[in-house]
């Protein structure tokens, strides 16, 4: 399988911008501001990096990985090491009218959440930070070193200051209070109800609040559940970046910008936006989109508590959107509680006695700066062990939580304070609080329960110490993509296929056959478009070369279009859309149309897939330099041993040669067959199947010869 197919994908070695990261195809572009902010907290130094040196990576994740590779000499350091570099990157489409794309910010660096290996990892978040950063004239931020005392970074257009937290008493504040304090400081005490002068000589003004990304008490206390929070509830959740910032004594980054983003073809961008809106939710002809997470989904639909009658928020509310989004997935409320919360954080505390308690619990997550998914799984695990008589006051594992109060606000606040402050949640020292702030698996290890509970499945953590999201025994591309990567991928491109099989999805239109669904989607999956068997989730196909191609394509699409150009995972891809002619969604055409309108280049969808493969391979090289070997790449024992099924017909597959929506009869991942599948995937990528190391030829074919040299210097280059 190696060789031939990738000849088609070889990246040309000529014509690109030559930067430190080596040659590559350039998409030197309008849409960028031209400079990346570099802040060394150890030295208190503020410098710039020319974006042109990294433009050929496209943006976001690609740039972040390339910067990390260049700036971190020793990739084996831990996440708390001051030499760890955190990149916070935008895309050329950030701050533009591109729907469901303008607002994401990509965060990368060595994380501290994963267990047992602290992989180089990623997370991203929405809101208005990336757009404001662009208006201020910056394409991204690189944070190096660690400050001696708590600081925050104050960006006002081109003026950047590293400021002590002391005058504003920021250290110790929750994320919301921190942001409010910075808003007041930057405005000079003026109320955000009028124009506010930026202070520049040209009289630039804004009505907007600064966009602030902050850590809460969890980050300050190095809780591995700590995340970064922006505005009310935009969270860079996975990876533990809140703790990484805490270790750097970095409380917040604030940015206010009044500058312009150059657009190559303004009329083309406006036309593209208006035309693309035809694929969106139509208030005049509403159509039930089944899933709240499609391009055409209704505004405000990402709030899960609204689907529970007992938790529906009373009073007035509105949908609330990130910058430029055509269909905001969150809401703001008359009560002011639960503002901007969405997805899993809105079901964090369904045991809540009242709606108000549920909303306040979610707000506390955001104020303390805590990763919802890990916090949720941790409390469920503690509850299970409590009910088993293992955990509790005076028991084998002494825990200050009283589960008789489970459902109350006091209970959840105490728990979240334990996570955030490493104490008993009431201000007193607590070994248990200190343990749980390390994350569930590290706590279980401390308690001597890890092997038993990970083997039994009591700890449902299928990938690298991340809690269950979608199960590898069922959602195959999710499982394989996660274990071949660094984290639970959280990329929903294919786990929404179920929506296209629901008659309600099509409204008055004709129902598509499953075969038509498969064809429409695979036609878009260049260069594998001829392989329809990629979408066969049946047990017979789960270890096949077709499945390997699905996993690979998903890695490439997301690495470039979703994580580098930053199309939102909640709204893209647009595979099948009843609002579109013949129900053929816009993915494949729309993404490059917007990119080219902004940048003026002639970049194709396939160019993005190719560049996505290059970025994915750079990431894999970084993990290899961190110490990854093929032998490490496996699921926990329970995935191989305990069957899992889902009778709901959410998956596409073949039965007797016929395409159908199928349920999954209970199945495990077969250990031996997975190992064979791993070999298949490694060969597809051009990696050494014995070690999983990249080979020189595979890297050079991608224009990554300098990466091969680095691997060679560390004896990490694969054979072949």
């Amino acid at each position, binding site marked *: 399988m190696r060789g031939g197919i990738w000849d088609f994908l070889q990246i040309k070695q000529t014509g690109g911008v030559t930067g430190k990261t080596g040659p590559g195809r350039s998409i030197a572009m309008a849409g960028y501001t031209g400079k990346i902010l570099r802040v060394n907290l150890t030295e208190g130094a503020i410098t710039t990096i020319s974006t042109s040196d990294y433009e050929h990576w496209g943006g976001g994740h690609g740039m972040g990985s390339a910067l990390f590779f260049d700036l971190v000499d020793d990739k084996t350091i831990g996440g708390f090491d001051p030499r760890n570099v955190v990149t916070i990157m935008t895309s050329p489409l950030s701050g533009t*009218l591109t729907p469901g794309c303008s607002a994401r910010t990509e965060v990368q660096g060595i994380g501290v959440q994963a267990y047992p290996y602290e992989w180089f990892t990623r997370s991203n978040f929405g809101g208005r930070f990336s757009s404001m950063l662009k208006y201020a004239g910056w394409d991204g931020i690189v944070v190096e070193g660690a400050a001696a005392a708590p600081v925050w970074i104050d960006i006002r257009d081109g003026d950047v200051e590293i400021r002590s937290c002391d005058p504003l008493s920021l250290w110790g504040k929750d994320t919301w209070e921190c942001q409010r304090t910075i808003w007041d400081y930057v405005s000079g005490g003026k109320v955000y109800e009028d124009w506010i002068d930026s202070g520049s000589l040209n009289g630039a003004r804004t009505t907007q609040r600064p966009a602030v990304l902050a850590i809460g008490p969890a980050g300050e206390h190095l809780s591995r559940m700590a995340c970064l929070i922006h505005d*009310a509830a935009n969270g860079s959740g996975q990876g533990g970046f809140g703790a990484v910032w805490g270790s750097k004594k970095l409380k917040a980054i604030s940015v206010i910008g009044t500058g312009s983003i150059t*657009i190559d073809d303004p009329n083309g961008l406006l036309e593209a936006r208006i035309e693309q809106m035809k694929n969106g939710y139509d208030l005049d002809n509403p159509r039930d989109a089944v899933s709240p997470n499609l391009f055409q989904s209704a505004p405000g639909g990402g709030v899960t508590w609204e689907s529970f009658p007992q938790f529906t928020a009373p009073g007035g509310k509105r949908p609330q959107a990130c910058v430029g989004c055509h269909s905001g997935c969150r809401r703001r409320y008359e009560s*002011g509680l639960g503002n901007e919360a969405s997805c899993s954080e809105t079901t964090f505390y369904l045991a809540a006695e009242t709606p108000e308690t549920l909303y306040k619990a979610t707000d506390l997550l955001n104020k303390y700066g805590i990763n919802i998914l890990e916090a949720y799984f941790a409390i469920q695990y503690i509850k299970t062990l409590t009910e088993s008589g293992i955990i509790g006051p005076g028991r084998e594992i002494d825990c200050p939580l009283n589960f008789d109060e489970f459902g109350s606000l006091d209970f959840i606040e105490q728990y979240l304070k334990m996570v955030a402050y490493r104490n008993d949640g009431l201000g007193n020292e607590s070994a248990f609080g200190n343990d749980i702030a390390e994350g569930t698996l590290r706590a279980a290890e401390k308690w001597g329960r890890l092997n038993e509970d990970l083997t039994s499945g009591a700890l449902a953590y299928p990938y690298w110490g991340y809690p269950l999201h979608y199960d590898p025994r069922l959602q195959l591309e999710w499982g394989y993509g996660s274990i071949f990567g660094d984290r639970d991928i959280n990329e929903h491109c294919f786990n929404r296929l179920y929506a296209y099989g629901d008659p309600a999805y099509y409204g008055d239109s004709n129902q598509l056959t499953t075969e038509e669904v498969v064809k429409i989607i695979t036609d878009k999956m260049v260069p594998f478009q001829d392989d329809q068997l990629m979408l066969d989730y049946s047990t017979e196909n789960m270890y096949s070369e077709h499945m390997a191609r699905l996993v690979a394509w998903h890695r490439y699409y997301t690495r470039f279009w979703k994580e580098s150009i930053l199309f939102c995972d909640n709204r893209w891809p647009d595979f099948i859309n009843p609002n579109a002619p013949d129900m053929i969604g816009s993915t494949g055409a729309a993404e490059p149309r917007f990119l080219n309108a902004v940048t003026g280049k002639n970049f194709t969808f396939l160019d993005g897939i190719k560049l996505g493969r290059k970025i994915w391979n750079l990431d894999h090289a970084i993990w290899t330099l961190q110490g990854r070997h093929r032998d490490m790449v496996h699921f926990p024992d329970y995935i191989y041993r305990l069957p899992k099924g889902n009778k709901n017909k959410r998956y596409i597959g073949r039965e007797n040669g016929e395409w159908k929506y199928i349920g999954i009869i209970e199945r495990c991942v077969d250990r031996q067959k997975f190992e064979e599948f791993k070999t298949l995937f490694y060969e597809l990528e051009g990696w050494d199947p014995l070690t999983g190391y990249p080979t020189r030829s595979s890297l050079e074919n991608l224009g990554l010869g300098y990466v091969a040299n680095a691997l060679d210097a560390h004896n990490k280059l694969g054979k072949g």
Partner: protein
Amino acid sequence: MAGTLEKKERTDSAFSRRDFIKHSGMAVIGMYVLGCDMQSKKEALGFLLLDMKKCQGCISCMLACSLAHEGVENPSLSRIQVLQNPYGKWPNDITVAQCRQCVEPACAAACPVDALKPDADYDNILTVDIQKCTGCKNCIQACPYPPSRAIWNHEGGHSQKCDLCANTLHWNEKGGVDGKKACVEVCPVKAIVFTTVLPSQEGNEGYNVNLRGDAWGNLGFPTD
């Protein structure tokens, strides 16, 4: 392409009097009479109305405005401004500030060089002639509705205000009273409409209207 000055024929999507009456109720009748009176004046009859309870805060209107007029993305250059507080309580978490196209515009009266006046080339819409504008900012300071609806273009060194897209150098659509307005076209939740009926000039009631219909209610949002 960028910078094309040619305007295309429009497809009229203006908010009709019937729509306005449907959404705003009988109170509009009095205003309608006022509107008829306005026909004899040389100022254009055209107003942007919006629903601050419906706006989703995406600022797409701001991005479209600066893109169509200046060819760049820059909220500070937008002639419509969305102010919001992430921690605020609905409906007071969002304020949208559009130019009211005042009948007796304080901005125009304050201009010492007659740069801000109805422009015959653009449907008699009150427009800033940037060749004449001296950058004194008197118009900005004179606007009685904070944040000032006349805005400062710090990159061009002149003031500017909403022209109902009559002069969009970077958008090929025909704008103005009879044409399309970029903010209206891109608003995903249809929280901005255009009318030729003069809104009440008292307070903000006439400009902040209810555009939420049954479909909005079916999504779980209030319609009253």
